[in-house]
């Protein structure tokens, strides 16, 4: 188990890797990668405890990134854990590389499912959770969705079905960064009130600050104690978290920083490492 301070440091180091990889690729999605990384780091390091050895173990806990465009965050964790090389991480989106622009299961099975067409990953996660019940395995399935993604009809079909099957081995995390491509979620297609909707849909609903490791830990632990119901964690996050000029800026959804912007971003992130020790 890592301390929260250690997790914070790892996440900030990975923020640096994410910016470097997207900058080298000259395309990609920094905003939603930076908002998601703290939660993904918590899950991989302290909860599902992924290692090279257990990466394809049939009993492993799973993590499905339904918002597939955030995959630089996932690749940065994979590289840190030795599942891919650092060179592969930095060859993001390069012809022939396993680090495809969006998760490709056939190239890299550690992603658990190909995603990138929004709205699909949660249903696949439910399928994996159902199989776990059928096979009497006690693995847990974590699935992260985006708030823009949550507008998809298939998400609401999935939200109806997981409680029906009493999937207490499923935990969904909403990366609620309030922003998508055409603007803020509240303007594009409002989701609120989310909590009340999900309670009405029979989910165990939790609400946290998605950048606070103590709150992430508490929510994940609570979700494991609930029987017969799937859990849904509404994680309030900041799009572009850690790089001041990207934070909460719709424009930083899907573009790479240029050389100068990259330098600025890296300076800021390195400063964060110094402050937080």
């Amino acid at each position, binding site marked *: 188990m890592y301390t929260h301070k250690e997790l914070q440091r790892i996440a900030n180091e990975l923020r640096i890797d994410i910016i470097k990889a997207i900058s080298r*690729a*000259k*395309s*990609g999605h920094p905003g939603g990668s930076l908002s998601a990384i703290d939660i993904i780091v918590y899950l991989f390091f302290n909860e599902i405890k992924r290692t090279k050895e257990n990466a394809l173990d049939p009993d492993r806990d799973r993590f499905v990134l339904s918002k*597939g465009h955030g995959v630089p965050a996932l690749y940065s964790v994979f590289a840190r854990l030795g599942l891919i090389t650092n060179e592969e991480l930095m060859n993001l*989106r*390069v*012809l*022939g*590389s396993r680090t*495809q*622009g*969006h998760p*490709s299961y056939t190239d890299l099975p550690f992603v658990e499912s*190909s*995603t*990138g*067409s*929004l*709205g699909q990953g949660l249903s696949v996660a439910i399928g994996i959770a159902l199989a776990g019940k059928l096979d009497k395995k006690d693995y847990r399935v974590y699935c992260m969705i985006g708030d*823009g*993604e949550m*507008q*998809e*009809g298939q998400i609401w079909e999935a939200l109806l079905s997981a409680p029906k099957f009493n999937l207490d081995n499923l935990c969904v995390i909403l990366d609620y960064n309030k922003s*998508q*491509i*055409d*603007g803020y*979620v509240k303007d*594009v*297609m409002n989701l609120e009130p989310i909590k009340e909707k999900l309670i009405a849909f029979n989910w165990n609903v939790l609400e946290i600050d998605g950048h606070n490791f103590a709150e992430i830990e508490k929510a994940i632990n609570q979700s494991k104690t609930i029987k017969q119901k799937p859990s849904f964690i509404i994680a309030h996050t900041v799009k572009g978290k850690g790089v001041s000029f990207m934070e909460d800026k719709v424009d930083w959804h899907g573009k790479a920083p240029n050389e100068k912007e990259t330098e600025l971003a890296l300076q800021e992130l390195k400063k964060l490492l110094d402050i937080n020790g």
Partner: protein
Amino acid sequence: MGKSTRLAFGETIAQLGELYPQIVVLDADLSKSTMSNLFAKKFPDRFFEMGIQEANMIGISAGLALSGKVSYACSFACFIAGRYDTIRVSVAYNKANVRIIGTHAGIGIGEDGTTQMGLEDISLMRSLPNFSVCQPCDEIETRELIKYSVTHNGPMYIRLTRQNLDDIFDDNYKFEFGKGVQLSDGNDAVIFATGSLVSEALKASKILKQKGINLRVINIHTIKPIDKEIIIKSARECGLIFTAEDHNIIGGLGSAVAEVLSENYPAKIIRIGLPDVFGESGTPEALYKKYGFDAESLAVKIESSLKK
């Protein structure tokens, strides 16, 4: 290098909005990419931002069309064609005047990779009764096609590129729905090309000309209903027949040409397209080279086939 056909679409639809009050435009959180935002800025009351809800957008477009509007429903080709049964029943079966605008066609989008590439969309849309399927090859053809589309009767699928394309036509170009356009003379071989591969085919014809090979290039902007006459005539007059498209070789232009020829003038056809694979990430240029879509690869393929 000219404009992308998605930009030409956005500019044209924003102009046409003034002339035709029946035009409505819908988008699913990609208006800055499909360029429908140009219409949105000018006509906010007739633009509907749906968020990431392609199926709902298509259904609402159908309802609007059944009530007298001409609906332009815009997203990436993969996501919109992916909502197939909604298109099939609410749009095609209803014969609703919906224009499905699918941008980011083919591997030409580059780095984003497979899930963002429309690679099977022509095939899907072509097999829906009542549907017309069009893919313009440059800015001017896009402009003329979009103008035409406002008064067309029945649903249409219009496939557009992310990447910029060479200018092929000038302001005198007359768009004729359902008609192929011959772009270069020649009897040694013919290539039927569509969309982004038209300019590659034209450049290939120039490379081949220097080697004494005369390639006839035919631009097929309307893949359905297809111009049977020009296909049969060219097949008769040219020895070798090629098709070229940034799409799976199954179900697209190559299949459409094969269907026409097998029933009317059986001949061997060499189809150039994605060999039934999903595509991948990479720069557009590297991908075009890898899959043999660039002018040089096309020229090499045609020359070597002639020698056989």
